[in-house]
């Protein structure tokens, strides 16, 4: 059996928002709808604002879309099974033709990734044609289910589908394809030889809000932070801000590994000029 999943490496993510914009384009999302967002985990109410005071700053990004949970609360609450989990590959989809717009799924989703069409979709001025995928897409395995349409009706809920119109044709989700730093890996969680499986098996990938037991099929490799790699120096108050507190390159790798960091997939390149 196939179980599609995704691993997102937060230490690679540079917060460029390409995936969010690519998603919006491919899926023709109207104004006000974002299936995929890149959040800033920092210190402010705005994106790209770090936490702390110079030089002790920290910030990372959290790309967020549907987690395609194995035990999805939205699927459990939907009174008409418009939201359903495709048993063939574990993707959570919404049937645009069946949704009654009660929004119970939005109340149930812990990740806040669902969007409602409060009115007729509105696009940027002059855009009266689909900019991304053209035409409707019906579920490959359940052909009566309209799971993607560029012209969504008002009054229904929608969300990330792992680009169902692409994966049904053997392609990867568009966010995976466009990510300029290769932070996203898509594949079959049930296949032990897949790249996603091997990253998760190496033990450094986490799920979001795991305590809720939703068991997401999207995993995150934690961000690489200064404090992770230089514990002996980070807390020395005598260190001058102008002095380099970062150890030589070889030692960064070693220390990172000692801290449980998985090399190969996640290590960022050291910034020049440090």
């Amino acid at each position, binding site marked *: 059996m196939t179980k599609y999943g995704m691993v997102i490496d937060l230490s690679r993510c540079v917060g460029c928002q390409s995936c969010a914009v690519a998603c919006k384009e491919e899926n023709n999302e109207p104004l006000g709808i974002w299936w995929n967002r890149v959040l800033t985990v920092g210190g402010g109410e705005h994106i790209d604002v770090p936490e702390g005071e110079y030089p002790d700053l920290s910030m990372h990004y959290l790309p967020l879309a549907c987690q395609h949970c194995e035990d999805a*609360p939205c699927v459990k609450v939907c009174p008409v099974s418009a939201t359903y989990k495709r048993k063939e590959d574990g993707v959570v989809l919404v049937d645009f033709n069946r949704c*009654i717009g009660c929004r119970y799924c939005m109340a149930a989703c812990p990740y*806040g990734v669902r969007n409602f069409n409060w009115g*007729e979709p509105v696009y940027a001025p002059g855009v009266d044609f689909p900019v991304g995928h053209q035409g409707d897409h019906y579920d490959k395995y359940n052909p009566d289910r309209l799971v993607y349409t560029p012209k969504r009706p008002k009054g229904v809920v929608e969300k990330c589908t792992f680009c169902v119109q692409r994966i049904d044709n053997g392609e990867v989700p568009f966010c995976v394809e466009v990510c300029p730093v290769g932070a996203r890996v898509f594949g079959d969680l049930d296949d032990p030889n897949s790249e996603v499986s091997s990253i998760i098996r190496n033990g450094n990938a986490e799920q979001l809000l795991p305590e809720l*037991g939703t068991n997401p099929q999207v995993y995150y490799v934690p961000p690489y932070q200064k404090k992770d790699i230089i514990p002996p120096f980070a807390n020395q108050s005598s260190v001058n801000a102008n002095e380099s507190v970062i150890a030589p390159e070889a030692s960064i790798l070693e220390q990172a590994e000692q801290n449980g960091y998985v090399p190969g997939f996640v290590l960022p390149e050291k910034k020049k000029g440090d």
Partner: protein
Amino acid sequence: MEKGVLGRVDNKIFYAIVAVLSTIVIVGAIAWALEIEYGLILTNMRNVVSWGLYISTFAWFVGVSAGGLILSSSAAVFKIESWKPVSKVASFVSAVVIAAAALIILPDLGRPDRILNLIIYAHLFSPLIWDFSIITTYFIISTLELGLLISADMLKKAGNEKAAKKREHYAVGLAFVALPVAIFTHSITAWIFGLQIARPWWNTALLAPAFVASALVSGLALVLLVLQVNSKLKLVELKLDDKTKALFSKLLLVFILVDMYLLFSEYLTITWPGVPSELAGLYTMFFGPYWYIGWGQWILAFSAVAILAKPGWRTSSKAITAASVLALIEVFFYRLNLVIPGFVHPLIDYPPGMPIGGGVSTSYALSGYSFQIIGQYFPSPIEWEITAGFIAGVALVILLGLKYLPLGSSE
């Protein structure tokens, strides 16, 4: 059969009230037509606070409908003779309000035209389907109960004592079913919210008991209010002695106290450990933008208690009217305090926050308000109008029912 005992002056007041209520209903209907045409964009609900005034009112109506059925079936099950004179009025009020509860879901739906999907594609795991089923059952039972009581009366008047006894017997049998159905109706409505792990403010085992308790408060309050209005307008003759009146007042007092106790226990359980995600809802309730609703609920509850605590006032119609109006508004505030703060702080609240959703205008989407980290919500005029229309509609149907249906005390 009792006829209304309206005098000329009362008639004028009655028709004036009917006219005012009808106007509100018509305004609500127009607002609803607009909402159907343009979509829920005319409400102020958005992706973060995605349920608002309609769902709060729905939960309130469900609770308010409790009193009638519980009162009339308790009278039958526990053989409380002194309550029986109001059994019919109570069942009638129940049926009207539960119907309103079911109907106010419609303006909240994005696709009311697909309502039959609830039957065609019913997903039995969903608490919404449980609620849909139990509310339908509840409506059927309260209508049946009312029908049996009225027809028993009619048979008795026609001199057919035997057939009347049989109907009364059925009514008692039905009451045995009605009581647990009523308890489950309120519990299941609570579980719609209480089972959700995404909303710590709702996710408490105490929610169902608190819903039953608050349902008893608002339900009894509505029956008492209806009785007061009825005696003021002299619509139906009801034989209710002062002793029973005092008992109802005392019951209302006890229900309010039990409800307050349950809620206090909930607040303490949240506050003492101080888990931030749990505190968020409580904080929003008392110190958020809706603080006046948060504190208002408690001020209203205490005021009602203060009125009912005075034994001499428990039979005074002014005091009963005041206490029941306060109790009804208190429970309405409780529903608002439950539903809305549950949404205000999403579990993942990093910038830029959640998008507001589709259908927004270009200028709005390009403004700084197209994402929300903390949910913003205040009902729009359309929401107020539709909700007011429903409440006025309930009042109107109850008034007309009192006037034209044979709901008076038998014998």
